[in-house]
């Protein structure tokens, strides 16, 4: 009797959340895969089944390979540096140095700002001949103006800097939480044994922080696919798609060119990439998580 009641209550309490979850996460995810095998509906002409034509187009599409490569370099450029800086920030902020409160505020502030607003500020920073970067260059070294965002060779690097600046403080928080949960006895024991700070960091602290590092890294990878707001303000993907990322290309395909069938195909690629990462995360965590 009691059990039957629990069933009913369980389902009753879950149903509102599940309704929305299915409508806006699971249904669209499945529907994306289905749509990727159909043509884009036009006017009165409904979508027609076209098999793998969209996928053939995908393989031929130079822009797709370009944005995928960009996304790869964006991730490679952003993740190690932002995670490394985050750890450094956390170690500093957690220490007994002077000015930790102000530093913590400075490191964390970019996290609470809208990326779109941040992009405006950085656009101003990068403005050729006028922004702060060129002011420094001409003021201190007498160098000519450079257009970092207008040059296909430098634009992605310029965007990576913005992403690192935005994210490092956020990742710092996770390290800070982990550091505060490490018992101080470990440091005392290391001191008694005459271990140097460096030895303590390398042999005790880093291994203990391993699960955090993995967690933060996976978050960073997901973010490198998800964060595209700054592209709208700073470059619109240009010049010549040099700063476009996968999600931005999906947006352009779907809402600028209205190729929704092809946009679904691109989204499938995104879903596959994220799933592969999830599986990778599962195995990595499985092996290293025992420290917790």
């Amino acid at each position, binding site marked *: 009797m009691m059990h039957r009641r*629990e069933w009913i209550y*369980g*389902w009753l*309490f*879950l149903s509102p*959340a*599940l309704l*929305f*979850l299915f409508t*806006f*996460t699971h249904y*669209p*995810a499945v*529907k994306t895969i289905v*749509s990727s095998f159909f043509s884009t509906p036009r006017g009165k002409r409904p979508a027609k089944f076209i098999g793998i034509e969209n996928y053939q187009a995908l393989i031929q599409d130079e822009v797709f390979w370009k944005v995928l490569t960009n996304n790869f370099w964006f991730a490679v450029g952003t993740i190690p540096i932002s995670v490394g*800086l985050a750890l450094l920030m956390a170690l*500093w902020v957690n220490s007994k*140095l002077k*000015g930790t409160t*102000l*530093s913590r*505020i*400075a*490191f*964390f*502030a*970019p996290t*609470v*700002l*809208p*990326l779109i*607003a941040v992009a*405006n500020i*950085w656009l101003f*920073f990068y403005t050729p001949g*006028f922004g*702060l970067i060129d002011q420094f260059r001409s003021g201190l070294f007498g160098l000519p103006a450079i257009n970092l965002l207008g040059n296909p060779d430098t634009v992605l690097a310029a965007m990576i800097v913005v992403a690192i600046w935005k994210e490092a403080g*956020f990742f710092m*928080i*996770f390290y*800070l*939480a982990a550091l505060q949960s490490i018992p101080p006895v470990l440091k005392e024991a290391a*001191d008694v044994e005459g271990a*140097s*700070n*460096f030895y303590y*960091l390398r042999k005790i602290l880093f291994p203990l922080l391993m699960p955090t590092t993995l967690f933060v890294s996976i978050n960073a990878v997901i973010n490198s*696919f*998800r964060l595209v*707001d700054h592209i709208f*303000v700073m470059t619109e993907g240009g010049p010549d798609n040099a700063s476009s990322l996968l*999600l931005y290309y999906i947006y352009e395909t*779907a*809402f600028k060119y209205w190729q*929704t069938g092809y946009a*679904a195909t691109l*989204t499938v690629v995104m*879903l596959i990439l*994220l*799933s592969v990462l999830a599986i990778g995360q599962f195995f990595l965590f499985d092996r290293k998580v025992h420290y917790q």
Partner: protein
Amino acid sequence: MSSGKYRLPGFDTVLNSFAMWLLAFLWALPLLYAIWTAFHPAAYETNFVWNAPLTLDNFKSAWSAAPFARYFFNTVLLVTMILICQFILCTLAAFAFARFRFPGRGILFALVLLQLLVMPDILIVENYKTIRSLGLVDTIVAIGLPYIASGFGIFLLRQTFMSIPKELDEAARVEGASFLGLLWKVYIPLAKPTYLAYGLVSVSHHWNNFLWPLIITNSVETRPVTVGLSVFAAIDAGIEWSVINAATLMTSGPLLIAFLLFQRQFVQSFMRAGIR
């Protein structure tokens, strides 16, 4: 970093302090620069003299150049609506996962967790079709709908609810409380810190969200500040940088001020919400 044994009088400390301050300064620089230009006349945009006259004119021009009052109203409405719905839906779902045994619980919970990976943020094409078929394009409700059943919120609250000792429910049940009464009188009060943490994370996330609102709105009546700001800054018909920076600060201002006032709670909330 390595001279712990010899105790050189604070050489490490000096070096580390200096490096930390330098990095903190670099991190604050973009924001400080934006603040400088926003509060000074355009002539001082790159001219850093201590006695440059302060002004609020840039804020006035930005405020009158675009309907920011309406944008703010929209964002506040949006964020409040999302937060209330998330609290209700996630609380009920988390309670069900934490306290009831029913068939399909494991699979359903896995499906909830899946949303941590496959976020509505990337399913923009199909979600747009759904919203269109519901006839809700260009409404504030449409901006919030995909986010109100939050996998993250359900997970976070479930963890908290599971840490509440079962003896407490039994005591309340003996007194004749219903499940809803139990939730309301025992579970929710004990989970207050989690609600605060999740609330701060949710508000700052949805205040800052841009891509989905950009897609689903196309009028002044529905646009949140982030989209309003991008529309305003995109008309590059000679709007001065100082005015754009003023608008930028304005849109992030409420969050930034809240952060500076409650920065300890903010950091702790993000920490609490981040530990899984």
